[in-house]
């Protein structure tokens, strides 16, 4: 009996500790000079150097901010690390964000920026391109500044194409022509045809760079209904399935080929990946090939916002306004395609770009942005990605029943979309 009492006492003590820890509320706004912390997923030295220089310049005029730290988190674990920091009461003041933005906005975890940015002298809010702010807005309020708007483009290894005796006309290029040339390259050289970079038969949302050409979409515009089983999507996946298992125009599952190492004739990747080109082969860079539904453009975005859990919301918001003002936006544009119309010309983007010409940047970035769609983005992105992947795994077999697999994707993600 005594032992039982002791055990119960110990459990009660444990529960008390647990409850007190669990119920600890967010810390109040602190007084005195603020130390700001911003999480980023880049570890690129030049980019961090630029961010630090902007931070230093801001601090010189703002004694109420004593320190600004840019914390690099690995991209693969970025969302998990950020949410763990927030849940653990160690949230940063500002954060870069990708597909986590919908969840953060829906949870009121981001500070509305529109009023502050409009009220900041010389910020020029109307300079922002509406097509790139939509993803980070709700009810007319902007919650994250879309600092990077990098369209997907078609990279071509012209050396490999020449070796296989293939020619393409970028002006009239279609997906069928890319697949035919890719299959020929694979047959004649043993190298891969076309590669959808970062897809690797796992990250299916990147396939929006293909299925949009067939007029397909992952879900309805209001995000409530899955449209994976549509006839357009079936045709797009039939194309991909044929390319992987019949014509061999793209590497099959479990096979890797790195375009930037010279292992493939084509790749679909963001324009910002041009930094991976080493000059070991001649290349071409073009807008995405046309699909049966015509020409289209797809955009990968990143934004930066202020978290409501920040102990220094006002200073963090003020710093964000400074970081993204016209002058600093121009500096950031050397790495990230900006959201400002005034900066979106091929010549301006080429001024700090050693790899791409003004003409290439005009064609694959500036001309694409106004009508580009973004990759599928929704609340609960990780759960949708995982459930969709689990269902889509059945697609990547030679004898897959394509319509049935696509219906199973909808069965898996519809309950999450409906939440």
């Amino acid at each position, binding site marked *: 009996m005594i032992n039982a009492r002791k055990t119960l006492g110990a459990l009660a003590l444990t529960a008390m500790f647990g409850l007190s820890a669990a119920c600890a509320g967010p810390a109040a706004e602190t007084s005195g000079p603020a130390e700001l912390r911003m999480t980023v997923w880049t570890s690129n030295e030049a980019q961090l150097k630029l961010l630090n220089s902007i931070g230093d310049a801001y601090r010189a005029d703002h004694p109420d901010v004593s320190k600004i730290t840019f914390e690099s988190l690995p991209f693969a674990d970025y969302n998990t690390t950020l949410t763990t920091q927030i*849940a653990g*009461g160690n949230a940063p003041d500002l954060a870069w964000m990708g597909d986590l933005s919908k969840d953060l906005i829906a*949870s009121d975890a981001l500070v509305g920026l529109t009023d502050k940015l409009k009220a900041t002298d010389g910020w020029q809010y109307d300079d922002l391109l509406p097509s790139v702010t939509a993803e980070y807005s709700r009810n007319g309020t902007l919650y994250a500044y879309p600092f990077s708007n990098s369209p997907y483009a078609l990279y071509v290894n012209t050396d490999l194409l020449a070796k296989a005796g293939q020619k393409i006309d970028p002006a009239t290029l279609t997906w069928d022509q890319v697949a035919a040339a890719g299959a020929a390259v694979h047959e004649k050289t043993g190298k891969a045809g076309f590669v959808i970079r970062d897809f690797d038969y796992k990250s299916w949302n990147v396939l929006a760079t293909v299925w949009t050409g067939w007029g397909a979409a992952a879900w309805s515009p209001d995000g409530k209904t899955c449209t994976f089983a549509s006839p357009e999507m079936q045709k797009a996946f039939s194309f991909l399935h044929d390319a992987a298992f019949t014509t061999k125009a793209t590497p099959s599952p*479990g096979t890797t080929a790195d375009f930037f190492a010279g292992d493939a004739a084509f790749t679909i990747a963001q324009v910002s990946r041009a930094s991976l080109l080493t000059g070991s082969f001649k290349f071409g860079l073009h807008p995405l090939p046309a699909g049966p539904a015509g020409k289209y453009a797809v955009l990968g975005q990143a934004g930066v916002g202020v978290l409501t859990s920040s102990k220094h919301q006002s200073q963090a918001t003020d710093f964000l306004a400074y970081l993204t003002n016209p002058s600093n936006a121009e500096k950031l544009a050397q790495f990230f395609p900006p959201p400002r119309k005034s900066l979106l010309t091929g010549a301006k983007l080429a001024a700090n770009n050693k790899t791409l010409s003004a003409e290439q940047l005009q064609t694959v970035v500036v001309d694409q942005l106004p009508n580009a769609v973004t990759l599928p983005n929704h609340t609960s992105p*990780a759960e949708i990605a995982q459930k969709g992947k689990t269902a889509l795994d059945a697609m*990547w077999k030679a004898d897959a029943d394509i319509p049935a697999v696509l219906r199973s994707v909808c069965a898996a993600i519809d309950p999450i979309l409906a939440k």
Partner: protein
Amino acid sequence: MSRASANARGTARPPFWTTRRRDVLSGYLFITPQLAGVLLFVLIPVGLAIWYSLNDWNVFTGKQTFVGAEHYAALASDPQLPSVLLATAIFSGGVVILNITLGLLIAVLLNRRFRGATLFRTLFFSPVVVSVVAWTLVWGFLLQDNGGINGLLATIGIKGPNWLQHGNTAMLSVIITQVVRSVGVNMVLFLSALQGVPSQLYEAARMDGAGGRTIFTRITLPLISPTVLLTAIITIVGALQSFAQIAVLTGGGPELSTTVLVYYVFQQAFEFNDIGYGSTLALMLLSFVMLLTLLQWQLRRKWVFHEQ
């Protein structure tokens, strides 16, 4: 009776710091660091997990809503859970059986005196000290369709399977990756136990005409059975906690074929941000580990040999 009279009769009050009390105090002082560790890193986390399992937690805002047994009810209606439990059983079963049998077999072979025995022991043990993520990454490259293993098979005219893309071969791959890396621990434990078996028993058995198989089953196995129990417990617990191999090698796929319970806990809690349901699953995993350990501990009376 006054104190003075009691002292006068030689019945003085015994000193407070008796030998027994000193022993008890030193005992408690010795276990205090461990006790603090258990409290801080086991009891409090388990208490928190129980609390979280009773709540819905919006990790973005820190708001918690008490939902009672809702997450426990969700276990029964989770359509993925049966597949996850099946994958957990296959993975753990495969790892435990292979790890113990191979560990014992290698230990028996290396328990003999021959040239290079130490080198072989080192070779079999060396994967244990390699970082699990680095180890798994290398195996990931080897197991690709156009990877090293299929390249080797091709040299002898065999078309290897696409190891990580099909359910059965993916599970086999993660089991083998795990076993090859960790079998060295069991090998060392078995080697130590084998070297503790008195040689007189073997000599007596041989004089009585016993063969190798009889000697192994009647002398070696019973005498090393306490070590078999220890390795079984360690291996089962280790198998149920294997995470990095799955996360790096297959990400739980294809489909749910390699999604084991601990990986599912991670997904729910840290990828889907459902800390409440993740905690419920973690408590279920804890229950499994405790039950299996208890079961083995109870069954030890049936098969573990203790010299009197």
